[in-house]
């Protein structure tokens, strides 16, 4: 695996890893928070077959015009409550998302979301020039360069 086209997102939540893992893998939880802002994710549009090779699909419905978009992914690793990995084969390059759950001493949990093969413009740039820098390092660099 190359380390191109990466994005890492870290967030601390006030909940134990088990509950956070369940929130990310149970339709009755996902329906409350999954879709991007301006969309809803109806319960009947969520498919979770929680095993390696199993399907993870979410249909996100645009609140304004009712149009919908379905994310189709396949679970690669399922290790409650530590690690969850899925791949979206339809996205260009097969975007892989790895979510890891790290319990903190104070009862909270750090959730680290790591994506590789991030598509679109970034992906195209990589194909052209062999992009060697992670999105995060790049973003930090841009901040310095434009400040």
């Amino acid at each position, binding site marked *: 695996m190359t380390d191109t086209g990466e*994005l890492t*997102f870290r967030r601390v939540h006030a909940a134990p890893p088990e509950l956070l893992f369940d929130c990310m893998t149970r339709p009755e939880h996902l329906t*409350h928070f999954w879709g991007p802002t301006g969309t809803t994710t109806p319960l009947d549009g969520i498919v979770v077959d929680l095993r390696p090779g199993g399907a993870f699909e979410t249909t996100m419905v645009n609140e304004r015009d009712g149009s919908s978009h379905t994310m189709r992914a396949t679970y690669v690793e399922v290790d409650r409550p530590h690690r969850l990995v899925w791949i979206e084969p339809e996205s260009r390059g097969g975007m892989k998302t790895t979510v890891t759950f790290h319990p903190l001493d104070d009862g909270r949990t750090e959730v680290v979301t790591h994506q590789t093969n991030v598509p679109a413009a970034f992906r*195209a740039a990589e194909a052209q020039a062999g992009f060697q*820098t992670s*999105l995060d390092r790049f973003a930090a660099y841009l901040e310095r*360069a434009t400040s």
Partner: protein
Amino acid sequence: MPTDELSLVFAALADPTRRAILERLARGDATVNQLAEPFAMSQQAVSKHIKVLEKARLVQRTRAAQARPCVLDTVRLEVAASWIAEHRRVWADRYDRLDEHLARLGANGEETR
């Protein structure tokens, strides 16, 4: 900005020498000579890198002075940065809503700890 223009920006930024050139220009305008100084490479090689940066419209070269100093054009950098920010926002928003969902679970008397 169309995707292929953004691709030019990302491709231009893919090279460490070109990133170093931009960082130098972020501190102030510089001539090709001045830019070439810290690198163990010919002025021609540096000029090639600057052409790539110009094509991506990350750098402008003024016509007025004979030395033609290079000037950082931050507009494209900001567009590239906002593209990244948008991608991150999807996850930020998602985890914001997860927190709200967790708070509701707590309020309903269910175990959150």
